[in-house]
């Protein structure tokens, strides 16, 4: 497999990074191999399950389809950035309190999608939540608890920002 590596520069969880990537490597492979970040993980490999979700310039993307070279010049956020000092993000806290996961494999994707939703809409209703999360799959079927967690996270985030 002959290929020419390319150097890209981007911001990863708030830090400037520079890395050589192969043109065929996707974002998940790059994050795992070069930064030992495993929160975004490949499952279906088709961009249909959301386990590989990362935020690129604030937008959720499927890291299993998005090529690493496309990240040049962007701002990338992974689940690992949400609790930088060990204190959990309100979204993470809400997922725990609502029991919004079982095996946990899909959870980072749902957490990041929820972060992105609450950035746009501070008080989403059930329909908005479901529409926003319709591209994320949870085989354990924790969906009802996930919807509750998003609503609790909205309340927590509001309380946090006003108080």
């Amino acid at each position: 497999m002959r290929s020419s590596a390319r150097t890209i520069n981007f911001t990863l969880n708030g830090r400037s990074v520079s890395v050589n990537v192969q043109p065929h490597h996707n974002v998940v492979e790059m994050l795992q191999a070069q930064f030992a970040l495993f929160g975004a993980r490949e499952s279906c490999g088709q961009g249909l399950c959301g386990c590989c979700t990362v935020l690129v310039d604030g937008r959720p993307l499927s890291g299993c389809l998005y090529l690493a070279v496309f990240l040049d010049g962007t701002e990338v956020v992974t689940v690992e950035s949400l609790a930088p000092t060990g204190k959990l993000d309100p979204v993470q806290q809400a997922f725990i309190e609502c029991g919004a996961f079982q095996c946990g494999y899909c959870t980072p994707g749902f957490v990041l999608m929820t972060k992105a939703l609450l950035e746009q809409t501070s008080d989403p209703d059930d329909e908005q939540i479901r529409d926003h999360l319709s591209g994320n799959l949870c085989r354990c079927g924790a969906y009802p608890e996930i919807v509750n967690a998003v609503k609790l996270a909205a309340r927590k985030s509001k309380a946090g920002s006003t108080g």
Partner: protein
Amino acid sequence: MKAIKPQVGHQVGRSLPRLEAREKVTGRAEYTHLMQLPGMLQAKILRSTVAHGRIKSIDTTDAKKIPGVFGVYTSDDIQTVIPDPYYGPAFHDQPILAIGKVHFVGEPVAAVLAADPHIAEQATQRIIAEYEELPAIFDEVEAAENKVLVHEELKPAGTFADLKHLKGRKGTNIALDFRLRRGDVDKGFASAAHVFEHTFRTQKVLHLALEPYASIADYREDGVTIYSGAQSPSFVRTEIARLLSWPENRVRVKVPYLGGGYGGKLYIKMEALAVALSMLARRPVKVALTMEEQFYTITKHPSTFRIKSGIDKDGKIIARKCEVWWNGGAYADVGPRLTQKSGFTASGPYDIDNVSIDSYALYTNLTPAGALRGFGIPQLVWAYESHTDMIARALKRDPVDFRKQNLLHDGRPQATGTILKNAAIEKVLDRIAERLNWKKPFDRGQGVVRRGRGLAVALKAVISPTTSVAVVNIAADGSATLYCSTVDMGQGSDTAMAQMVGEVLDMPAESVRVVPRDTDVTPYDMGTLGSRSLFHMGHAVRLAAEEARDKIAALRRELGEPEGSNAPLGDLFRKKYGMQAGNIVGTGIYKPDYIPPDSSGLTTNATPFWMVAGSGVELEVDTETGHVRITRLINVADVGKPINPKIVETQLSGASLMQLGFSMFEKMHVDGGQITNASLADYKIPAIHDVPPVMENMTVDAVQDNGPFGAKGVGELATFGVSPAIANAIDDAIGVRLTELPMTAEAVLRGLYVKNNRPLGDD
């Protein structure tokens, strides 16, 4: 001076969040699929393109030439390190790589190793395998005719004494037939006022865990370490030790968290291949499958169930005949066990004097089938609860009243002859009916959209006999650590076990450390399967904690502490050893009593506990499109006394949603043995929009007398009743009876056309 210990309070019954919750929401929880070892090679697999064929040749020349390829291997290579490379829990019938013949599309034929998985993948495409195709068999009922044989000879494992008679049997696809005869079913039919017979089928579906199968093996001369997403680490250890002719203590199996299991990751899957390749390469080897490859690994059993019931003039079921064919695919996996154990309750939760059950495990040329959240029970309930409803409707009986008239009650013998105990079947049924307001009039609608409601109840005998062992270790500062091999794959077992330790030792469950599964450290457990762990391992954990507690009490006495003293544990250790040193270790072993069935399938002790659950459904059917919208899903279960009520509720909810997918749309489409929808793009699983707007998950007030703290297993329960409850509700809405899963809009619409005497063609 008398130390006052704070009152900790009960740990059992707390809705404690999962102990590993923080790891999971931060993306830090460990899964095998994500693990890396220094010097590790990645394996990619060449899979069979034909359903049944003799391997004429495998040419690996070109593949080996690709730069970066470490090696290319076939069964010839495997047999240089493992001469007899056949494995399996019930039959030793599955080769690590195909030997001589392939038996299903997708069977591993060759493997490539490379440091870069892209290179390994590319190399598999350069291997040329040629086959002489043989006739293949796909249907379970046709397979029973033995016109096409999947295997020349049956090879039962020595593990199960009751399979020994099958050893070397030739000319058959029947891996096991279970037979139960109670009373005289023919006499029953002869004296019946009404006789009903129906046939039901279920389709091929799969677990589809979001963490696909993954195993890593690191082979050294003195031992092998295996990291695996496995539900039964102890079994993996035993089986690998057998394949290598090694003592068990040279095989170490470490299991981190599982990204879903649902029965798929039981027994042995990728482990043997990873070990063999690591032996050949002398490097750590990772076999991590893609989503697509899961379709070629293990599935649920498709089934055909012919059920016949005789009803007397008063509406009592007096005879029931059950014939079940289980489509086990190309290798037995645990199918024979499933065939027998589910056979125990194939006649349902009813009190019937004359029962005949024949349950057949069949080999076919399809992806092997194994356990999937219910161990065969959902397939049986689909049939017997649809059948029961059809009888009630034909006799113009209320479906709840008809069930209540025939239900089994505690103190009565179940079909096997085992007396029913702690099985709250009627309570479960009553609660579902109550939540559905069954006695009140129900608006079925007038126009295009019609409404219906339905319910179903089920009974399962938990698998027996199985053994669990646990160790509780108290450190010198008084903190407790639990060692057990139960695998937490999302069901919350680590949390529940910690709660039991905390309950016995009077300490917060959060403070109990649960050691991740590691067969060098955590003792034997039969496997995390069949909703057995909370009961069996729960007992072992309870016993281990009690032994530790008793040893602490003995130490207090030895040290001359006054009766009733509650000096902190750390003080005791310091007093005894002069410093913070020492341990107190408690062990617990649990194995319930069991009497194997006799030649008529009868036994007075079939199971240590009965599992009981049911579901109720309200739905809408669009009569122009056949689209079904489930508006309400109620799941009710008898779990004894819940250890963690919140986790129980989410287990019920999650199990029912999984079964909703199996009921409404999931299906592996097979064409000439080829799976034509082997990806998430073409095989849909339930997503957030598929969740019914109203869901209720609840337990009935019950106690399992012989359970740990009155509890029993949960994981599979809410899968049981969902499919027939939906079918019964569809019938209630539009008078169309579906007898085959999944219940797609097309199937409903076709049913409507048939009902209106305008059947649609196949185009």
